[in-house]
């Protein structure tokens, strides 16, 4: 083949080649997306063995479903959706008898309640760049995310950590866009509250503004 370098070949081109039976093209697609798939699975499941299982299932499902991939979504959205679905299955299996949690992850009731009000408001002592650079603060950041309810954590992971759009997040989790927005706002506000209690400068704390009229 007289190809341009792989970096210039689009995913769509590689998909067509793979659909035509070109294994190297599929492996090139995999090479582009495998780290992101693995990272998403690891963030969702927090277990390396499970993350590898999900990554494997994802690419096997992708190769099996490749003929049916029509390119309505980008390959990356499609593959992340497969990975999310596979990871959700493991989460549900883990939850086992805790059917309440299972319902929670997919049930939108309770999303309509009011949004939690910010309580602890203060300028941070350090910039995000400085905070992620230190092990001690990094652990606090990871712990804060781990403490979120699953339904909020998953939405935040897909939207803010992985950078999916609201619509893509909704599709991957089987939620409406409205539910995604509500959960995202709660997730962001809870993380803000928690992190500001850790990183806020007490000397520059503000009282929340009350509007009780």
């Amino acid at each position, binding site marked *: 083949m007289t190809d341009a370098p792989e970096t210039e070949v689009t995913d769509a081109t590689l998909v067509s080649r793979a659909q035509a*039976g070109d*294994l190297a093209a*599929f*492996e090139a697609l*995999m090479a582009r997306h*495998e*780290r992101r798939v*693995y*990272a998403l699975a*690891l*963030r969702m499941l927090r277990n*390396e063995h499970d993350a*590898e299982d999900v*990554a*494997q299932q994802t*690419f*096997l499902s992708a*190769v*099996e479903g490749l003929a049916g991939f029509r390119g309505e979504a980008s390959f990356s959205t499609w593959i992340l959706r497969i990975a999310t679905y596979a990871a959700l299955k493991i989460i549900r299996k883990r939850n086992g008898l805790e059917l309440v949690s299972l319902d929670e992850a997919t049930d939108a009731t309770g999303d309509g309640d009011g*949004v939690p*009000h*910010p309580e602890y*408001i*203060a*300028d*941070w002592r350090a*910039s*995000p*760049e400085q*905070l*992620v650079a230190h092990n001690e603060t*990094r652990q606090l*950041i990871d712990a804060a*995310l781990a403490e979120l309810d699953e339904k909020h954590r998953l939405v*935040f992971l897909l939207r*803010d*950590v992985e*950078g999916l759009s609201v619509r893509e997040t909704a599709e991957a989790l089987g939620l409406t866009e409205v539910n995604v*927005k509500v959960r*995202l*706002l709660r997730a*962001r*506000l809870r*993380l*803000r509250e928690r*992190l*500001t209690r850790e990183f*806020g400068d007490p000397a520059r704390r*503000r*009282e*929340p*503004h009350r*509007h009780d009229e």
Partner: protein
Amino acid sequence: MHCDELLAALNEYVDGTANPAICEELRRHLAACDPCQVVVDNLRQTITLYRQGQPIELPPACRERLHAALRERWRQLHPVPPTA
């Protein structure tokens, strides 16, 4: 605009997807409401923190296993035709 209304429009505001009229109203509210301005700053920093989170690397051995499993499945799905 009250702080409650600001809260409801916060996602769109920090994502830059709020419509211009709402943006303008929010900016006016924020200019007069210091706690809300700090909440918006905190929120942006929170999102930045996680966007800049440590990249997760795929362990090389894991990558090898993934590709090996994929090739095996590929061969099952695309049996090599007997050469003419």
